[in-house]
């Protein structure tokens, strides 16, 4: 298929300006980068994180008064799917030592560690076991394994990347455990990229002082997830998996300890009472909330469920106002929308251009600044390109790369991207790519300590659902490390907590009743019902014909 005839017409404008831009690049001249003041200005005006509009203070709960994006605030001010006082909590359907909510990388690592320590484990997950952002991580996993490196430098790189906002004990835990996590994965049989003598391949990344990025092809996360999932399947006697069965509310006991969760079979629409001596929340991020309408790199189930459940039970969060947008996500073809185009494309000299084929920014600003400039050009200046499916995009002039570095450079340096576009009839060494910022990562989340403990006894959390490890900005390769380090820590800590002896009192959902009363007291009328579990992608046309839905809403 490739580009449409209309788009090909527009590409002619890019081609018209290209010779002069290439000549400019050859002379070493760049479109001027912004000063620090200008950066701040464009961030303040156009970066979704900095905009005042579309954000508001929370009216209830532990983070009351702090400002969050509307989409996040609505979720945190939401009502339960359950009528809490009508649920029969005496009828326990599942009873276990450790209940893990979420079957991605963190939850599965936790299950393996907890079962290793002798605990009986249930993993309750919304989609299939392994359907998670872990599966999608391509780049790699950080760990200071080399002689010239140490946890000291991993710590420094990480906290510097996070603008020194990160929670220190969590960064220390991450950099301490990273080589141990990788050794554990190797022990489980993961196929890392290695040289013939067994040395792990290591690469630099944005913000690194040492080559610390280890990988397995360009599907590191998928390889981690496959291996962890396979291992849980060997431990059937200790680990049970409930798929398509998300938790929709935490259960406490009357002393305030976490005591399990209400589980929901999405296929039969039945609710079950799952009692557990310890609970680990590992539900991942919020990309599928499409904050401010952005496309996302996240998987289908990334709807912030765990943060909401914890919030109703009184557990607050850190840095949840902070979202990582990657400046160059695919805007066309439609089947690749939202997927990442690596920074390397701009590193190799490709310009970012508007509909007229003109440059409007320095291509290698920091990620948040670059994203803001693209948004400004498309929305404020109206110089974006609109795709056949109605998306905004700007050109990334990849054909410049071969002109600057010689024929064949694109194919050699960007093999995966070349194939990804070639499959849809676009030769990125000859035609530019259409890009737009994409929602990539939930920087913040549930507040924990270095043992993955939350403020509630018996409640632990790990993975993208927690906040503090990365502060306001995460480095590449630290997310896969984070899910293994804290996944393992949460599993160990939960099993230890259980083995120290836990006496559960009668189960209660009073925290939900109390939270809903707080909503009413704060004047939150018609709160939405959450967790939403799945995003809604029906068109307006289809929604307007769903007459029964609107009838139920009116009731």
């Amino acid at each position, binding site marked *: 298929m490739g580009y449409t005839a209309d788009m090909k017409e527009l590409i002619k404008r890019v081609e018209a300006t290209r010779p002069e831009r290439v000549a400019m690049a050859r002379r070493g001249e760049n479109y001027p980068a912004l000063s620090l003041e200008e950066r701040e200005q464009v961030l303040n005006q156009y970066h979704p994180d900095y905009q005042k509009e579309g954000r508001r203070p929370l009216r209830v709960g532990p983070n009351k008064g702090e400002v969050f994006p509307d989409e996040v605030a609505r979720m945190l001010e939401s009502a339960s799917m359950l009528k809490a006082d009508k649920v029969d909590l005496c009828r326990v359907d599942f009873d276990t030592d450790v209940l893990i909510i979420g079957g991605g990388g963190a939850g599965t690592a936790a299950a393996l560690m907890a079962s290793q320590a002798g605990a009986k484990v249930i993993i309750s997950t919304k989609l299939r076991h392994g359907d998670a952002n872990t599966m999608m991580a391509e780049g790699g996993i950080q760990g200071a394994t080399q002689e010239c490196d140490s946890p000291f430098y991993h710590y420094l790189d990480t906290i510097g990347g996070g603008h020194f906002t990160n929670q220190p004990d969590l960064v220390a835990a991450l950099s301490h455990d990273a080589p141990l996590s990788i050794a554990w994965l190797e022990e489980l*049989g993961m196929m890392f990229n290695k040289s013939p003598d067994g040395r792990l391949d290591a690469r630099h990344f944005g913000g690194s002082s040492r080559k610390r990025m280890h990988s397995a092809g360009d599907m590191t996360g998928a390889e981690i997830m496959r291996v962890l999932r396979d291992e849980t399947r*060997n431990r059937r006697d200790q680990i049970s998996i409930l798929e398509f069965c998300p938790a929709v509310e935490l259960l406490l006991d009357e002393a305030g300890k976490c005591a399990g969760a209400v589980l929901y079979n999405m296929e039969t629409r039945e609710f079950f009472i799952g009692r557990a001596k310890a609970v680990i929340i590992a539900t991942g991020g919020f990309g599928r909330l499409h904050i401010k309408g952005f496309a996302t790199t996240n998987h289908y189930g990334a709807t912030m469920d765990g943060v909401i459940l914890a919030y109703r039970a009184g557990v607050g969060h850190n840095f949840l106002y902070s979202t990582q947008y990657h400046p160059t996500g695919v805007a066309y073809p439609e089947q690749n929308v939202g997927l990442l185009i690596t920074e390397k494309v701009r590193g190799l000299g490709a310009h970012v251009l508007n509909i007229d084929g003109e440059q409007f920014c320095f291509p290698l600003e920091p990620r948040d600044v670059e994203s803001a400039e693209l948004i400004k050009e498309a929305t404020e200046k109206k110089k974006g390109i609109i795709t056949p499916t109605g998306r905004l995009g700007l050109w990334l002039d990849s054909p410049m790369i071969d002109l600057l570095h010689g024929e064949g450079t694109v194919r050699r340096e960007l093999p995966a991207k070349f194939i990804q576009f070639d499959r849809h009839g676009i030769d990125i060494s000859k035609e530019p790519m259409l890009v737009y910022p994409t929602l990539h990562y939930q920087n913040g989340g549930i507040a924990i300590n270095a043992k993955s403990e939350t403020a509630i006894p018996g409640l632990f959390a790990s993975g993208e659902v927690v906040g503090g490890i990365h502060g306001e900005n995460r480095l590449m390769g630290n997310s896969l490390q984070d899910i293994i380090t804290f996944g393992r820590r949460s599993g160990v800590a939960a099993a230890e907590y259980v083995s120290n002896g836990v006496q559960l009192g009668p189960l209660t959902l009073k925290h939900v009743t109390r939270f809903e009363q707080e909503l009413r007291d704060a004047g939150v009328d018609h709160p939405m019902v959450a967790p939403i579990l799945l995003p809604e992608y029906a068109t307006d046309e289809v929604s307007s014909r769903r007459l029964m839905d609107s009838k139920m809403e009116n009731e």
Partner: protein
Amino acid sequence: MANAHTCEAPTANLQQVATGDRAILPAGAKTIPIYVMGKKYEVPETLTIMKAMEYAGFTFLRGCGCRGGICGACPTVYRKEGDYKLHFGLACQTVVEPNMYLAQLPFYPANRAVYDIEKIEPTPEAIHALYPELFRCVACNSCSKACPMGVEVLDYISALKQGDIAKAAKLSFDCIQCGLCASRCMGELPQYHIAQLARRMYGKFIMPRAEHMQKRAAEIDSGKYDALLDQLSGMSKDELEKLYKEREREPDMAAQGTWMPQDKQYL
């Protein structure tokens, strides 16, 4: 009496912009017919099967995962009108074509053998013992034809029959475990489970181990870095910033394991 309800003309089509993953049909764009499990829907051309079905009003519970071609949740089979051939693809990666008849295959049962990775012998015989059905393969190649990732399934199965675990591990590396191979197999093999076992054996027992990492792990376990990390955790922003700016950067072109920094006190 006739119905007094009057119908207003639809308002002019404003310039719509798609948000999130919701696709729209801009004015003038073409739609094409597709048949979902035999039932006809008109959907915009250029959409993937997944987004076209959502456009038509389907909400996925099963059959949808990463939406990026790597998780294996959305295997789909289809035929085109007037064409005997059966086609395979991932719904999130395959673009709709006019008059395609499709069905999703979100799950396909396949036997998986339980084993203990710590105790298993990394030999072909161990794999053969767990999966004797390996030898029911008739080399028809239906598995490879069905693979949406272009994995040469038959080749890795043949390699395992011949006892080459390393070859099978490498050949199967791109497998996303969607199960389409197993759905087409005459010999009723669970190819992707057998491949997973081969890859783990290869990664754990056959590939050389990373000695530099084992050494580092031992240092960490001995508590070598505990004091340093405590010290860092207690530092002010200014102190951290100073150290951050002073970091030496490992040269891009230095061969791994050869370069050492001037300042070795924090290693």
